[in-house]
């Protein structure tokens, strides 16, 4: 048990070193920027895994929380352009051509980096908590919850598109110059953003790992297995679900805030129904109920998306759909599940495979746990 945990941290340290030291030197600025984007999305995947993989609640609306974080960052970056924009006025370009004369009130705090960035995390956390409280309190469960989150994503994207003078509409917010005074497109700035993203991902991974290994994490697993039972054991399951949903939303917000300066744009097409579903697919492909699976899935699927979109832009969505169906039907535990199973077989070739446990486990994966008891 001890050595396995030690091994895990060793892998973690090596990966971190590779990402921090080797990647910036080995990859071209273009590839490094792409990797930075994938790793930002991996933070969001961790959040989805907490709520879906560990608690069994499928959210198909995490694009909204991602968007809240992303738009906070984009508003800051847009205001940081100042009078250097196309129209030489202190108002964002899209407000000028939409006929706004003054900055709307909710834009004003975003002048300050140290307000915009905490908001990028706290706002989604708060919205997640309120949304979670209202739905979980009235015992909305299973597929009904997923449908409501889906509706939330649709409403959010429609709202953004409809309120063009305030949000930039379909085009979203783009054309940034500086972040904290550094030119945003410069190689050094982008490398810096990449490093910050890696560090944030590492911190979020450690946070999530701590959560799922705590007694709280076992309550989450219990909720996934038999929520009623948990209630009758004197746990207020509503508060547990609200808390984990809120954390999950905060991680999505952070991902959005890191995504925007590296990609240079945020628009409703990043946060609506389809992207929200895609986010769940990353986690399904990587492996629900394992944190490494969430990270792996986000990077793999997005890397595949980049590769595919470069060569066959029209076929990406079909491929994604096939991938999802394939994973759900044949590898419900995703890539990490395949790996763990292969390792199991390799280690104990004589013993019978853990097939009995793994079979028909669509609803949930087998999480790797430290366990409360030593063997």
């Amino acid at each position, binding site marked *: 048990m001890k050595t396995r945990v030690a091994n895990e941290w060793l892998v973690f340290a090596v990966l971190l070193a590779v990402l921090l030291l080797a990647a910036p030197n080995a990859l071209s600025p273009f590839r490094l920027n792409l990797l930075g984007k994938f790793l930002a999305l991996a933070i969001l995947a961790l959040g989805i895994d907490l709520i879906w993989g560990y608690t069994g609640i499928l959210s198909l609306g995490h694009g909204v929380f991602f968007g809240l974080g992303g738009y906070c960052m984009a508003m800051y970056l847009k205001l940081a352009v100042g009078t250097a924009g196309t129209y030489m006025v202190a108002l964002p370009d899209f407000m000028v051509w939409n006929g706004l004369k003054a900055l709307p009130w909710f834009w004003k705090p975003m002048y300050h980096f140290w307000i915009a960035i905490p908001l990028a995390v706290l706002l989604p956390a708060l919205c997640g908590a309120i949304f979670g409280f209202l739905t979980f309190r009235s015992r909305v469960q299973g597929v009904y919850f997923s449908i409501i989150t889906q509706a939330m994503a649709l409403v959010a994207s429609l709202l953004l598109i409809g309120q063009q003078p305030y949000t930039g509409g379909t085009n979203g917010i783009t054309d940034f110059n500086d972040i904290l005074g550094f030119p945003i497109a410069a190689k050094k700035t982008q490398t810096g953003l990449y490093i910050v993203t890696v560090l944030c991902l590492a911190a979020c991974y450690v946070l999530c790992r701590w959560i799922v290994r*705590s*007694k*709280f994490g*076992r309550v989450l697993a219990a909720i996934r*297995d038999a929520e*009623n039972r948990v*209630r009758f*054991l004197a746990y207020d399951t509503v508060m547990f679900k609200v808390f984990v949903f809120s954390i999950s939303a905060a991680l999505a917000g952070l991902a959005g805030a890191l995504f925007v300066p590296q990609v240079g744009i945020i628009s409703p097409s990043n946060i609506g129904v389809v992207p929200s579903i895609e986010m769940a697919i990353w986690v399904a492909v990587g492996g629900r109920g394992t944190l490494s699976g969430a990270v792996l899935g986000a990077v793999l699927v997005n890397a595949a998306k980049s590769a595919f979109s470069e060569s066959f832009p029209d076929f990406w969505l079909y491929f994604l759909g096939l991938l999802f169906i394939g994973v759900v039907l044949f590898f419900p535990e995703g890539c990490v599940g395949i790996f763990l199973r292969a390792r199991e077989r390799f280690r104990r070739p004589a013993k019978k495979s853990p097939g009995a*446990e793994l079979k028909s486990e669509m609803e949930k994966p087998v999480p790797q746990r430290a366990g409360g008891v030593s063997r």
Partner: protein
Amino acid sequence: MAESIIYLEGVTVSFEGFKALNNLNFIVDRGELRVVIGPNGAGKTTLLDVICGKVRPVEGRVIFGDMTDICSLREHEIARLGIGRKFQTPSIFKNLTVFENLDLAARDKSKGVLSTLFAAPSPVKREAIFSTLETIGLASKASQTAGSLSHGEKQWLEIGMVIMQDPKLMLIDEPVAGMTGKETERTGELLQSIAGERSLLVIEHDMVFVRQIAKKVTVLHEGSVLCEGSMETVQSDARVKEIYLGREAREHGGN
């Protein structure tokens, strides 16, 4: 008369017009082991559902202990007062180990979000869990996942979880369903050893088992108490014979 642990007064539960409980009056004394029997649809499980807060009565009061009306409380609040429930079909956390199942069930000062996030393993609790594991005969399977247990073992695990809750009143729904004769007997002994310091309310179909453990039996019929008393009293009651035991006898005769 001894103090009551649970007292239902004029309780009616209605499912879309069907009255699962009909103006039910029902009392269990402190430290008592009460068995509730009755034909299917008599309202036995609904009675437990009302007491643990799963179902809310449309009329009547449910008084726990001295004066607490639990009708307006939510499930986890009722559980915190000291009412534990074992369900009819074993309801356990199949992906957690047997030990972890009991650990989650164990009574704690706080079962909130923060206290579980920062919970540290406690040797005292560990001790208590292993003692319960001995009691329910699952000590050797502590680190197995609960999903891998046999049906009877799952039943015991759930009883163990209720014991770990350290409740004042235990609601036990069909504890020996699917158990072998020997397992049934052991379960009976276990329940009898628990009664006394705690109060038990047991629902059971297995008449052999009921005879083994019951001192006082309540017969429910169509949502109300039909008859109450010792096993002999109940068995000799003509109405009971007609609606329940008689029918059972006919069924057995028919086989």
